[in-house]
C-alpha cells in the first residue's frame, strides 16, 4: 500500500514537472538540444557521449531546470540520431546504432531508406517512453533499498559496478575490462582524500589537490581519442538510394509490438547495469530478437522487426541508465556519466539521499526525458531528408571544428588551462586503450566510483574496528559479494575460453595455409 502511495505521488510530481516545463525557455532548450544532439549523433564518429561532452559547457550558466532539460534532450537526440547514418551509409552514427545497420541498410538499398528511418525513429520514441515509465515506477523502490546501504554495501556496489561494466564492455576478454576499471579507480585516488584531507599522488601539482576533474577526463577519453581514432582512418562512404517516404503505415507496427516490449525490457535492464551502455543493449536485443522471433531468419536482410529490436533497446537504455544514476549515483551508461558530472556542477548529488535533498529532481528528469523524446520524434521525422544531406559533409571538415569545443568544455568548468592539458592526457590514454581493444567505459566508471569505494571501504573497516566477519553477516553486502565472486569466476573462465579459441583458430588458419 505504501509503495502504491509512493508511485501515485511520483506520477503526480512528474505531471507537475511536465506542466511546469511548458514554458518557452524550456521548450526552446529541449527542441534546440534535441536538434543539436541529433546532428552530432548523425555524424559517424561522434557518439552520444561526445555530443554531451561538446554541449555540456552550454549548460554551465543555466539554472538547474534548464540545464537538465537541455542535456537530456541532447542525450535522447544523439542516441536516436545515429540511425540516419546507419541506414543510409551502413556506418553507424553512434555505436548504439551498429545493430541498426544490419537491417536498415538493406532496406535503404531497396529504396525504403525513409521508411526505415521513420520506423527507427518511432521505435526510438517508444523505447525512451517505455524506459521512462519503468524509471518512474522503479526508482522509488530502489530508493527504499538504497537507504539500507551502509558503507560496506556502498563499497561493494562500487566494486560490483566496475566488475560488471568491465565484464560486459570488454566482450570476450573481461580481464581487459577489469584492468581498465581499476585504472579508473587508480586515477580517482589522485588529490585530497575525503577522510583526512590528505593529498595523494599529486606530485606537488597544486592543481591536482582537488583530484582529477571529471569533465575534462570524460571529454578527453571519449572526445579527443575518438577524434584521433576516426581521422587516422581513411573510410570513404557513399549514400545509398533516395530517402523516399518517411512515415510508415500504422498497420505495419502491430505485429512488431511483442518485439518492441521485449526489446524495451532488455534495454532497461542493460541500462540499469553500471556502465553497460546503449550499444550493448542494442546488440543483445537484436540477438535475442533474432533467436526468439518467428521471422528471425529474415533478420539481416532488411527486416523491420530487426530494426525495431535494435532501436527500441538502445533508447530504452536511457531510462534504465537513469535508475542507478539517480538512486545510487552509479551511471548506467557513458553518456549518463556525463550527465552526472553536469548535475554535480549544479550542486545536485544523486544517490540514496536525493529524494530528501532534491525531492523534485527525479520527476524533473522524467518530465524532461518525455519532452525530449517528443522533440526527437518531431525533428527526426521533419528533418529526415536534410539530415541525410549532412552525411555528405566530409569528416575531415567536421571533426577539426569539434576540437575547439572540447577545449572550451574542459576549460569552462574550472577556468584553468591545466584542465585542458589534462583532457589531452586522457585523450592520449583513451586513444592507446582504443588501439589495444580495451573498453573505455570502465575507466570512466572507475573514476566516478573510486572515491566512493575508497571512503566507504575505510569507513566500513573503521565501524567494524577492522574485523571482516561482522561485514559478511549483512545480507545485501553478502549478495553483492556473491555477485562479484560469480563475475570473477565466470570472467576468468570466459577469458581462458577466448584465448583457447583464438589459438585454435590461428592454428587452424596456419594448417590450411600450409
Amino acid at each position, binding site marked *: 500500500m505504501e509503495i502504491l502511495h509512493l508511485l501515485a505521488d511520483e506520477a503526480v510530481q512528474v505531471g507537475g514537472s511536465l506542466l511546469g516545463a511548458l514554458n518557452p525557455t524550456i521548450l526552446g532548450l529541449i527542441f534546440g538540444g534535441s536538434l543539436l544532439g541529433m546532428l552530432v549523433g548523425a555524424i559517424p564518429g561522434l557518439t552520444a557521449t561526445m555530443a554531451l561532452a561538446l554541449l555540456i559547457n552550454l549548460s554551465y*550558466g543555466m539554472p538547474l531546470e534548464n540545464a537538465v532539460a537541455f542535456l537530456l534532450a541532447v542525450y535522447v537526440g544523439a542516441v536516436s540520431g545515429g540511425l540516419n547514418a546507419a541506414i543510409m551509409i551502413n556506418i553507424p552514427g553512434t555505436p548504439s546504432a551498429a545493430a541498426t545497420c544490419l537491417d536498415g541498410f538493406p532496406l535503404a538499398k531497396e529504396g525504403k531508406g525513409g521508411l526505415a528511418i521513420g520506423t527507427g525513429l518511432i521505435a526510438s520514441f517508444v523505447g525512451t517512453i517505455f524506459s521512462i515509465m519503468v524509471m518512474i515506477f522503479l526508482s522509488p523502490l530502489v530508493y527504499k533499498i538504497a537507504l539500507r546501504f551502509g558503507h560496506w554495501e556502498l563499497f561493494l556496489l562500487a566494486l560490483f559496478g566496475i566488475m560488471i561494466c568491465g565484464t560486459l564492455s570488454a566482450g570476450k576478454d573481461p580481464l581487459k575490462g577489469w*584492468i581498465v576499471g*581499476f585504472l579508473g579507480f587508480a586515477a580517482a585516488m589522485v588529490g585530497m582524500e575525503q*577522510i*583526512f584531507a590528505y593529498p595523494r599522488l599529486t606530485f606537488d601539482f597544486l592543481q591536482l589537490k582537488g583530484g582529477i576533474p571529471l569533465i575534462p577526463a570524460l571529454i578527453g577519453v571519449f572526445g579527443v581519442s575518438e577524434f584521433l581514432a576516426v581521422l587516422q582512418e581513411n573510410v570513404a562512404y557513399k549514400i545509398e538510394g533516395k530517402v523516399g517516404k518517411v512515415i510508415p503505415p500504422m498497420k505495419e507496427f502491430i505485429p512488431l509490438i511483442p518485439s518492441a516490449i521485449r526489446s524495451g525490457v532488455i534495454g532497461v535492464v542493460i541500462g540499469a547495469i553500471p556502465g553497460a551502455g546503449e550499444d550493448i543493449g542494442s546488440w543483445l536485443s537484436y540477438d535475442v530478437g533474432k533467436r526468439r522471433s518467428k521471422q528471425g531468419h529474415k533478420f539481416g536482410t532488411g527486416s523491420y522487426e530487426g530494426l525495431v529490436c535494435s532501436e527500441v533497446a538502445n533508447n530504452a537504455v536511457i531510462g534504465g541508465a537513469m535508475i542507478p544514476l539517480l538512486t545510487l549515483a552509479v551511471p548506467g551508461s557513458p553518456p549518463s556519466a556525463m550527465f552526472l558530472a553536469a548535475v554535480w556542477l549544479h550542486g545536485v548529488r544523486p544517490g540514496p539521499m536525493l529524494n530528501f535533498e532534491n525531492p523534485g529532481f527525479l520527476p524533473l528528469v522524467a518530465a524532461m526525458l518525455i519532452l525530449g523524446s517528443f522533440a526527437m520524434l518531431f525533428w527526426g521525422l521533419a528533418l529526415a531528408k536534410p539530415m541525410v544531406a549532412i552525411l555528405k559533409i566530409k569528416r575531415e571538415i567536421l571533426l577539426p571544428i569539434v576540437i*575547439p569545443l572540447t577545449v*572550451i568544455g574542459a576549460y569552462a568548468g574550472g577556468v584553468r588551462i591545466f584542465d585542458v592539458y589534462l583532457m*589531452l592526457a586522457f585523450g*592520449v590514454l583513451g586513444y592507446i586503450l582504443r588501439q589495444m581493444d580495451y573498453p573505455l567505459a570502465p575507466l570512466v566508471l572507475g573514476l566516478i566510483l573510486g572515491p566512493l569505494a575508497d571512503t566507504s571501504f575505510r569507513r566500513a573497516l573503521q565501524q567494524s574496528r*577492522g574485523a571482516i566477519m561482522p561485514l559478511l553477516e549483512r545480507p545485501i553486502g553478502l549478495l553483492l559479494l556473491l555477485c562479484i565472486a560469480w563475475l570473477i569466476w565466470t570472467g576468468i573462465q570466459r577469458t581462458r575460453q577466448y584465448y583457447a579459441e583464438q589459438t585454435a583458430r590461428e592454428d587452424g588458419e596456419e594448417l590450411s595455409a600450409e
Partner: protein
Amino acid sequence: MAQKVYKGSGADFITAVCLALFGAAFSIAALRMRVFNNSLLVSPGLFPLILGAVFILLGLLLLRSAAKRGGWAQASHVLGRENLHAFATSPRVRKAVVLLLFMVAYVAAVANFPFLWATVGYLLVTFIYLKAMKLHWILLVSFLAAYAITFAFRDLFRIPMP
C-alpha cells in the same frame, strides 16, 4: 624447438609487465601515505595499497596468459629495432601523432593568444594537413567556424573562455 607465437600475445606481454610494475610503484607510494599515526586500516594509503596489489595480480594473470601464447618471443619482436621503425613510420601512427601535436600547440596558443585567432590558426593548419578542401574554402571555413564558436560561447552563452 621455438615456441609458437600468437597474435596480440606480445602486446599483452608488454602490458602485463607494465601493469605489474605500475602496481608495485603504486603500492610503494601508498605505503608512504600513513598520517596522524592512525592504523593502516583507516590510513589514506590503504585503498591505493590494495589497488597496487590488484594491479600486480591482474598483471600476473595477463602475463601468464600471454606467456603461454608465445608472448615473450613476440614482445622481443615488437620491441625490436626494425619493428619500432616500421611502427614510427607507419602513416596511421604519423597522422595521429601530427594531429595530437596540432592539438597540443593549439592549447598552448589558446593560453597565450586570443581564442579566436588561436582557433583560426588551428583549423587552418589542420584542414591543410588533412587536405579537407581547396585553400580558399579552408581560409573561409576556418575563419567562419572560429568566429561562430567564439561568438556563440563567449557572447551568446557567456561561457568563460581561455
